[in-house]
């Protein structure tokens, strides 16, 4: 049974684009961002709209390959493709873009993108044990603040920033409560729907409405849990490279073969939600702390991801872990070898891109995994 409120989330991305257009015509500034490292609180504290741009569709890739190598991560090609084709309304409306030096592919692509939009590319220290990483990130956040002022003419004040930090904390807590409903067995919400709700967060034009809908959804899901009976397929945790709306291929295969995608550890899942920003500290320092602790494979070593994944496996009674690696994503690909050793559950890695050409191969891997668990 599917919750009725999902209809709102089905059309959220399309409808938000229209709302953002209207707001923009009234003079509101829009700032796009790509990944979980972006301190969105800062963007919103300036009064600009923040919109997620992480590109997860196959459509603009052919166009992107005119400038970029073919054997590059599809996410990078897709985001660049959207940038040069005007096919993504969110990129189109963005007055400026915030990005980070995550992997090498992304950071070099941003150099090309800088010809299209004003950009601020924040420098992520790639060592997770570098002593001054938090100070460094704090300086980068200050630089972003200056950029917003120069480029968009918008000011961030300490109090506006604190206010946004609070709002985002509330939102993160609420979304984690939503995710936690999937501790029930069977899970009341499918992995594809959960992704849709969490993904929608980056595009919504109206936070209050979004939050209200999430709350209604949660009530519905609780009722579904009460009604549903126990037996259902293996409980799967998905991790790895970001999996977004438009690219639910692997999640769909898992669910079509009877598995339950309980949650994602990936950044399209709970990676960015598990930690809150300290509301009592200096807001810049607090932001730097939270964002520098994100367990992304672009930092080294990334032991926190192993801990987080293992904790989630226990907490959510996970039967198997599926690690999705986007083709040519070296960081996640290499890390998969370590993750497999660290994770205390049956584990497979699936290397894929956005095309549909390998669905049969993915089915084979997933059904073998399920047979291995069930036998």
């Amino acid at each position: 049974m599917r919750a009725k409120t999902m209809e709102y989330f089905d059309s959220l991305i399309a409808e938000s684009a229209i709302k953002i257009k209207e707001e923009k015509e009234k003079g509101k500034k829009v700032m796009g961002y790509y990944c979980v490292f972006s301190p969105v609180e800062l963007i919103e504290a300036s009064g600009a709209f923040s919109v997620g741009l992480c590109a997860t569709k196959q459509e603009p890739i052919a166009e992107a390959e005119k400038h970029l190598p073919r054997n590059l991560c599809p996410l990078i090609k897709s985001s660049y493709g959207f940038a040069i084709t005007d096919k993504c309304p969110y990129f189109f409306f963005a007055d400026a873009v915030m990005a980070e030096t995550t992997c090498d592919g992304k950071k070099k692509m941003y150099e090309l993108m800088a010809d299209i939009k004003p950009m601020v590319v924040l420098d992520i220290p790639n060592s997770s044990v570098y002593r001054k990483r938090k100070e460094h990130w704090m300086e980068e956040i200050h630089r972003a603040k200056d950029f917003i002022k120069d480029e968009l003419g918008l000011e961030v004040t300490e109090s506006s920033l604190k206010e946004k930090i609070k709002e985002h904390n509330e939102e993160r807590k609420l979304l984690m409560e939503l995710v936690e409903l999937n501790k029930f067995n069977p899970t009341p919400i499918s992995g594809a729907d959960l992704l849709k709700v969490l993904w929608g967060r980056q595009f919504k034009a109206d936070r209050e409405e979004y939050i209200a809908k999430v709350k209604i959804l949660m009530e519905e899901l609780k009722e579904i849990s009460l009604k549903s009976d126990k037996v259902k397929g293996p409980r799967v945790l998905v991790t790895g490279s970001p999996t977004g709306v438009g690219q639910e291929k692997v999640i769909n295969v898992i669910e079509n073969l009877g598995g339950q995608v309980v949650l994602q550890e990936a950044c399209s899942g709970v990676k960015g939600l598990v930690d809150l920003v300290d509301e009592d500290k200096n807001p810049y320092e607090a932001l730097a702390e939270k964002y520098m602790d994100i367990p992304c494979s672009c930092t080294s070593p990334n032991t926190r991801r192993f801990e987080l994944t293992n904790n989630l496996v226990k907490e959510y009674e996970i039967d198997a872990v599926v690690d999705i690696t986007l083709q040519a994503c070296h960081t996640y690909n290499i890390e998969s070898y370590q993750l497999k050793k660290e994770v205390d559950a049956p584990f497979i890695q699936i290397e894929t891109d956005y095309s549909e050409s390998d669905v049969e191969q993915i089915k084979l891997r997933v059904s073998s995994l399920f047979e291995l668990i069930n036998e």
Partner: protein
Amino acid sequence: MYTVGIDVGSAAIKIVVYDGETYRYAIEPTGWSPKSNGEKVYKKFLIENNISSSKVKRIIATGYGGRRLDFVDEYKSEITCHGKGCHYLCSDIRGVIDIGGQDSKAILLNEKGKVLDFNLNDKCAAGTGRFLQVTTNALDLDMDQIDCLAKDSSPLSIDNMCAVFAETEVLNLLVQGAKKDEILAGLLKSIALRVGSLAGKANLQGKIAFCGGVAQSQVLRRMVKEYCNLNIITLKNPQITGALGAAVLGFK
């Protein structure tokens, strides 16, 4: 009472009937339509072996085309089936390497033949039967000439793992005057090394069964032993282990 296992691969349909003690099998080309051919092969097999369909307790399908058959009772993945089939034929193996048309697989088994872990090649055709097919085509060779030609040749190094690029590499080597048999040995070596790394990632140790059509090549088997230091044994019918495993699984 019988069970039937039917493995519909990209090149051949393998079918096995099992009565709890003995088995019989047949191998037929897959042809254009795996679905209708699957059914045809099944019916023909029953007639030829004089088995009435009412005696068949369970039919289990596996392989790429297996999912599409609708006259079967259940579908099981090739991983599970190859594991079971090889273990049935030789109970002290702890691993299976299967080089299929589209996928190469390394499967880790426990002493009961249960799959503990597995590893498959990534999206490209490297190290698969397809790779060998494309590249031997470029050499204008037939698959059954492989062994006698490559037997005593020292392998040239073939570096491209992608089937399409490897084909170009082969053609370039030919143009430069390299000997066919050495190129061929080089191709086999590159497959052996590839399979070795698959096996390494899945932690394969001890006695390992080698199956799939390509496993019929003695030279390749020797190379896997030599270059990858794996204890490879060869089963009597390496091509049918998937179908056999399916039939055995159905019997329980």
